[in-house]
C-alpha cells in the first residue's frame, strides 16, 4: 500500500492486532481517518492527513506536526485504539506507567 506514504502501516497494524482481513482493516482505518478507500491508498491525500494528525510521514520536516517514529506511534495507538508493544515499553521505561 505504500506504508507511511499512505496508510499501509496502519492497515497492517489492524491485521496484526485484530487479525482483520484486508477489506475490514482498510474500512476500519478509513473510518477512523474519515477518508474514502481510494484516498486511504493515495499518497497526496494521506500525506496531508498524516501530517495533520501527527501519524508519521515518509518525508521529514523539523516542525511540530511532522512526527516520525516513537512519537507518531503514540498517536497511532490512540487513534486506532490498539496497544503497540514499543509504545508500551517506552512508557514503562520512561516511568509513564
Amino acid at each position, binding site marked *: 500500500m505504500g506504508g507511511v506514504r499512505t496508510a499501509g*502501516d496502519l492497515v497492517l497494524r489492524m491485521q496484526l492486532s485484530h*487479525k482483520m482481513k484486508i477489506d475490514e482493516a482498510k474500512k476500519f482505518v478509513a473510518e477512523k481517518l474519515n477518508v474514502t478507500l481510494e484516498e486511504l491508498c493515495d499518497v497526496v491525500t494521506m500525506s496531508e492527513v498524516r501530517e495533520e494528525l501527527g501519524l508519521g510521514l*515518509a518525508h521529514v520536516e523539523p516542525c511540530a506536526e511532522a512526527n516520525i517514529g516513537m512519537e507518531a506511534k503514540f498517536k497511532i495507538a490512540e487513534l486506532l485504539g490498539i496497544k503497540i508493544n514499543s509504545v508500551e*515499553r*517506552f512508557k514503562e521505561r520512561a516511568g509513564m506507567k
Partner: protein
Amino acid sequence: MQDKKYFTRMGDGSIVHMTEAEIREDMKAGMEDAVMRGKIDPLTDEEFEHLYSIITMPGTIVGVEPGMQIVTTSDSGSDKINTKCGIPVDRAVNAMLHERILGCDSVDIGFSDYNYKTVKGVAKREATVLKHALNRTTMPLFYGAMPNLGFYTKPDGPVDNWAVLLPEGKIKESLAAQEEAVEHAVRDIVYVAEQMNDVGADGINLDTSGAAGDADFLVSLKATEAIKERFPDLNVEIGMAGEFVLGMHGKLKYDDTRLAGLYPHKQVKLAEKAGASIFGPVVNTNCNMTFPWNMARVCTFIKACTAVAEIPVHANTGMGVCGVPMCENLPGDIVSRVDKALVEICKIDGL
C-alpha cells in the same frame, strides 16, 4: 497468417512467446494439476478468463485499481540491501530506508544467518538492533528468522541426523531424532521471542516453516502457541517453505491433524489454531513450465487457501514462489502480473 504471439516467460525467467491457444492450454494444465494434487476446486470460467487477460495484458507493468492496493510483510527484509546488494548498511537504518524510501508497510529485522538456532546466542544483541529501529520507525517491525530444523542435527547440533538414519533403515531412531529436535527449536524460538518482546517488537516472523518437513512445521505451530501464551501482545506471522508439507517424519500431528502432505488451504487452519495473526502460503514455481501454467496453478491453490482462511493471508511472492520466476533479478512484467492476479482473483490480504 500466423497467430499472434504474446510475450511471457518460463518459470526460470527466460523469455518465451506463446499463442492464445498455447497459453490457454498451459493454464488449463496448471489449474488441473493443482486441483488433482490439492483436491480443491478449479477456477471458475470468469476467473480463468480474468487470469488470461492479466497474462496477456499490454504493458510491462500492470497494476490494480486505485483503492485496491494491499499491504506487505517480508522475510529478512532489513538485511536484503546488505546481503543481496552488497551495500553495507546498519539494519536499523535499513528499516528506515524500507519505510521512507521503498514505501514498505512493514519490515523484519533479521540476522544474516537467518535462523533461530544461530540467533539464540546473540539474541540480546539482535534485540538492541531492533530497539534502535523501533525507536526511529513508524511502521510495524517484526523480528524474523527460520525454524530451520536441520540445524539441530549432529555434528553442528545436538540430535542425530535423520537424513543419515533414514537411508540406514533406522526408522525409529530417525523419528525420535526429529521429535527431540522439535523441542530444542521451540525452546530457542520462544527464547528469542522473549528478547524481542522485551524491546517492543510488533511481531515475530517464523519464515520458511516446514523447510525440513513436517517436524519443522510443527515447530512453528508449537512456537506460535507458546509465544501467544507467554506474550499475548506479540503477534506471529507463519510463512511457509513450500506448497505442501514434506513427510520427513510422517506421523506428526497438530490438533489431531497429520501434518505430512498438507496443502495451503489446510495449513492455514492450523496456523489459525496455533494463534498466528498472518499466514504466508507458498506455491512452488516450476522452472520448466511457462508462466501461464505456473500462475493458473498458483491461483487455484491460493484461492482455495483464502476461501477458508479466517486470518489475513500474505502470499509469498519472492524468487521461485507463487509464479515469480526462479532468478536473482526479477522481471517486473511477471512480478506485477503475479501481484495483480493474487489480489484480484485470489483475494489475498497482503504480500
